[in-house]
């Protein structure tokens, strides 16, 4: 079983995920941010599934390893869908919104193909969990690039919706922290303990989204000029 601190962070993360869904319902924003809520509900389900496997087979078992990495990869794909839904909100009714969704699907399939190729080359015996790990790691990096593009679009289109701006920025912080943790783990395996920080990082996203939904209404607006670090 994981240590008491790790378990506490796990339960805290699950509580924040549920809190986000409750806050969305309380603020009548559940369907406005449907994919965000769907992601949080699936994360809670994944937490429950992992916990059941952990209880039955133990932390060092292959079953737990499979359940952890497969659910992680699936959740990363859903988070990618969340990102695309945010793109759709920012670009709204622009003509190329449909093409953008097609490009996103192509990018997702391309990332999956690339991950498969990397794993097939380096691993003599291809296992599913290694592929799932590689896919998650690559999708986090693609997520950073897409969030960066989305942020550039927010600034360019002078987006003023406070909720949308803060949801995009917290997603950017989350993707960057996750990708940096995975990369540090690969660059310097001697600091392997850093991978345990992912639990705490996982708490940040639902907490930041909760605060955004509770603090600001759908009508709250920001002046785009105040978001630029260097005034134009």
């Amino acid at each position: 079983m994981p240590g008491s601190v790790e378990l506490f962070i796990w339960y805290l993360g699950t509580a924040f995920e549920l809190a986000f869904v409750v806050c969305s319902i309380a603020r009548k924003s559940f369907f406005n941010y449907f994919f965000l809520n769907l992601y949080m509900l699936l994360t809670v389900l994944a937490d429950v599934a992992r916990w059941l496997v952990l209880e039955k087979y133990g932390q060092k078992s292959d079953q737990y390893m499979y359940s952890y990495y497969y659910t992680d990869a699936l959740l990363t794909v859903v988070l990618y869908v969340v990102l695309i839904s945010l793109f759709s909100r920012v670009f709204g009714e622009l003509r190329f919104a449909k093409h953008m969704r097609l490009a996103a699907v192509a990018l997702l399939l391309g990332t999956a193909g690339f991950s498969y190729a990397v794993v097939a080359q380096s691993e003599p015996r291809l296992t599913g969990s290694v592929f799932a790990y590689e896919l998650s790691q690559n999708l986090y990096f693609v997520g950073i690039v897409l969030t960066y593009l989305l942020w550039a679009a927010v600034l360019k289109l002078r987006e003023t919706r406070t909720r949308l701006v803060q949801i995009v920025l917290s997603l950017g912080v989350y993707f960057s922290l996750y990708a940096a943790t995975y990369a540090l783990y690969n660059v310097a395996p001697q600091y392997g303990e850093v991978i345990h920080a992912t639990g705490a990082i996982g708490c940040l996203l639902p907490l930041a989204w909760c605060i955004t939904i509770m603090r600001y209404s759908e009508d709250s607006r920001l002046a785009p000029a105040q978001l630029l670090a260097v005034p134009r």
Partner: protein
Amino acid sequence: MMAAIILVVSLVTLMMFFVSYCRSLMASSASHALSEEVRDVTGIRSPASGRDFTKVMQLLQLCPERPADRMGLRAVQIYYSFLGAAQSTISRMAPAFRSWSENERAGCAYFVAVVLDKRISLSREMLAQQSES
């Protein structure tokens, strides 16, 4: 090699998103007009100064917490410390950075003053409710 590139890019984007997140928090409180009482207590006149930050933080400790403020406050505190560290290093090489970071620190001070204002209002409401009951 690839992992090292990903690490560097992630750290750069982390910095960029974190700074933007803090700026969006500060921007959302910029339209809030401080009450005369908070201006008197903190000594903040418009515009606020970066030096007011520490004083306002000390005053904040005296008021009951609002859970909704905690994370934003923590983020802005980290941003303020980061600006302080950057100011003492980068501004030697780029003097223009000093005035920009001073503006940012003033924004941080104004943000915490707004939090203080809200906490005082909350304390007032709680006292009023208690005296009613």
